[in-house]
């Protein structure tokens, strides 16, 4: 049983997985993830893919907002940039998926740096509103630059081909999403073991102190914007190749808010929390929708009253978590773990 926190070497202190138990559980998780697609039906796999894509996107936002402390109301716009980049590269230039993936990320990162540039002079709420403006401007470009984005009709994308295999079903696509998600999680976890990640946290906690300690605020804020948008772009690329069509209505402000809700519900500044939050915010609305459609089958007229419940529940989840459990699901998870770890001798 793991009790104290006593390390004898630096290697032990810096290890990602601190104890054999953790390693064992991680192994079990990987096995479960690998077996899952063979046991699940198409609907479950569809949800799993969407959840995976949401995890990548939400990780990006948590790096920017949860770790570096810069609130962004324009995250969905960067997901959109990634999606459009991928769609355009695939349909116009016939680029392979594996090349599109990093290129979509880079494109989003480049635009992220531009949007992040005002952070040189403003911060806090003013910056938050500037990202809101970016969201609006990107949406306008998506809709009105018809020669490039296809306007409101959007772009249809063929299923991606990887190493000669066509990922055209939910089952096959799962094996595209999963490695990207694992890579994204590992990368995020590791960023915060480096100078850059620690600088982000220092900026979030007190920007002036961070500056005094020799962190170039502007440069690191731009890094945060770039990394965050890169992951958003990758998520967008995954998303468009899964859904196979991209239109502007997929990236409204509400979508940005959904990403923020994921990291709030999951836990700000927590990688594990981001994963929980993304799963939670993808599954709960879907489950709710299914429950409501059962009610609809029983009583069709009640639908006009029940349907708006979705936005009530969405809002109530955000407010509820903020008021009752500000550190999110990650904190609940930690408490549960502690309970079992110490049980039955709690003190």
């Amino acid at each position, binding site marked *: 049983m793991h009790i104290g926190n006593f390390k004898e070497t630096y290697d032990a202190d810096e290890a990602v997985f601190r104890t054999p138990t953790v390693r064992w559980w991680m192994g079990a998780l990987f096995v479960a993830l690998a077996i899952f697609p063979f046991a699940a039906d198409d609907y479950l796999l569809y949800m799993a893919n969407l959840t995976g894509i949401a995890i990548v996107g939400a990780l990006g936002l948590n790096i920017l907002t949860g770790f570096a402390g810069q609130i962004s109301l324009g995250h969905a716009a960067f997901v959109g940039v990634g999606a459009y980049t991928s769609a355009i590269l695939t349909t116009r230039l016939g680029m392979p998926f594996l090349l599109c993936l990093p290129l979509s990320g880079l494109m989003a990162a480049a635009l992220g740096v531009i949007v992040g540039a005002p952070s040189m002079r403003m911060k806090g709420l003013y910056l938050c509103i500037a990202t809101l403006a970016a969201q609006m401007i990107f949406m306008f470009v998506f809709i009105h630059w018809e020669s490039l984005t296809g306007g409101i009709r959007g772009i249809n994308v063929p299923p991606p081909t990887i190493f000669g295999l066509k990922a055209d079903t939910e089952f096959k696509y799962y094996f595209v999403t999963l490695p990207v998600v694992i890579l994204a999680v590992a990368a995020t976890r590791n960023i915060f073991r480096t100078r850059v990640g620690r600088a982000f946290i220092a900026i979030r906690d007190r920007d002036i102190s961070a500056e005094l300690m020799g962190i170039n605020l502007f440069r690191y804020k731009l890094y945060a914007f770039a990394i965050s948008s890169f992951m958003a772009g990758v998520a967008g690329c995954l998303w468009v190749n899964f859904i196979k069509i991209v239109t502007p209505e997929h990236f409204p402000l509400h979508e940005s808010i959904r990403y923020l*809700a994921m990291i709030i519900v999951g836990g*700000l500044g927590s990688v594990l929390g981001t994963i929980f939050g993304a799963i939670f915010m993808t599954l709960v609305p879907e489950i709710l929708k299914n429950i409501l459609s059962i009610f609809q089958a029983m009583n069709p007229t009640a639908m006009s009253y029940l349907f708006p419940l979705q936005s009530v529940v969405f809002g109530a989840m*955000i407010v509820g978590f903020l008021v009752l459990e500000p550190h999110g699901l990650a904190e609940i998870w930690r408490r549960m773990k502690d309970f079992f770890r110490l049980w039955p001798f709690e003190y």
Partner: protein
Amino acid sequence: MDIFLQLMVSGVAVGGIYALIALGFVLIYKATSILNFATGEFMMLGAYFCYTFLVLLGLPVIPTFLIVMLCAALLGFLVERLILRHMLGQPTISIVMATIGLGSILTGLAEILWSSDFKSFPQIFPRAPIDLGFAIVRSNMFYGFLISITAVIVFSLIFKYAKVGIAMRATANDQMAAYSMGINVRSMFTLAWALGAIAAGLGGVVIGNIGGIQPNLGQIGLKIFPVVILGGLDSIGGAILGGFIIGVVENLAGGYLGPYFGGGVKDLAPFVLLVMILMVKPYGLFGKREIERL
């Protein structure tokens, strides 16, 4: 030239309404440092309250207005008591998200209570357009402007001269000092929310009267951000001026650029202007630059 004047006049008319809503927004921000993302939803509810009392219950116009203001105040009071009071001292992002979540709840509730159908107000003002000599204004815009401007002036006077207003300004300026002068800071927070909700609710009534109401009316609330940021988040004069600037810019952009870039320009222009202003003046035109100490 005719078109220019016409656009200017309707810009000013809309700007007056924006000024009113922005005023409510800034009141809340100044007193509590909370950016109320649910302002648009407060507006929407104000419009629905008005619709309910006016059409469904058949009350006359003046009592309806008073009741709407009372309901809006109650709404602001409840929101502050039930949600935001628990969030004192939380990081900015949490408070921003709380008001966004609140907005989502209010939109859903409105849809459940009043259904998502479009509803139009009855004719409460004379229908004939007003001819100002150099331009012609739609009558409900003209009267809406009058109502907004009256409210803006009343609010400003309260804030400037009434004892409550001075207490609120003191709270905004320095909470500790306000406490020591015997001001009940907490009740000032509640009051700010009530007043802010009244301003937003009245703005909603005026906007609903011009364009009809729907639960997604709250999205107009997004336009309030360019207005308040432009003037500086904590400046009342800035909010009023910002309202007019955004109203005019929006209409000019819609009139002159709309034909080239399509219909969305009118809604986009305020945000582009906002980004440009923020690049030059990061705290808006009249915002107070915060001096930070460690």
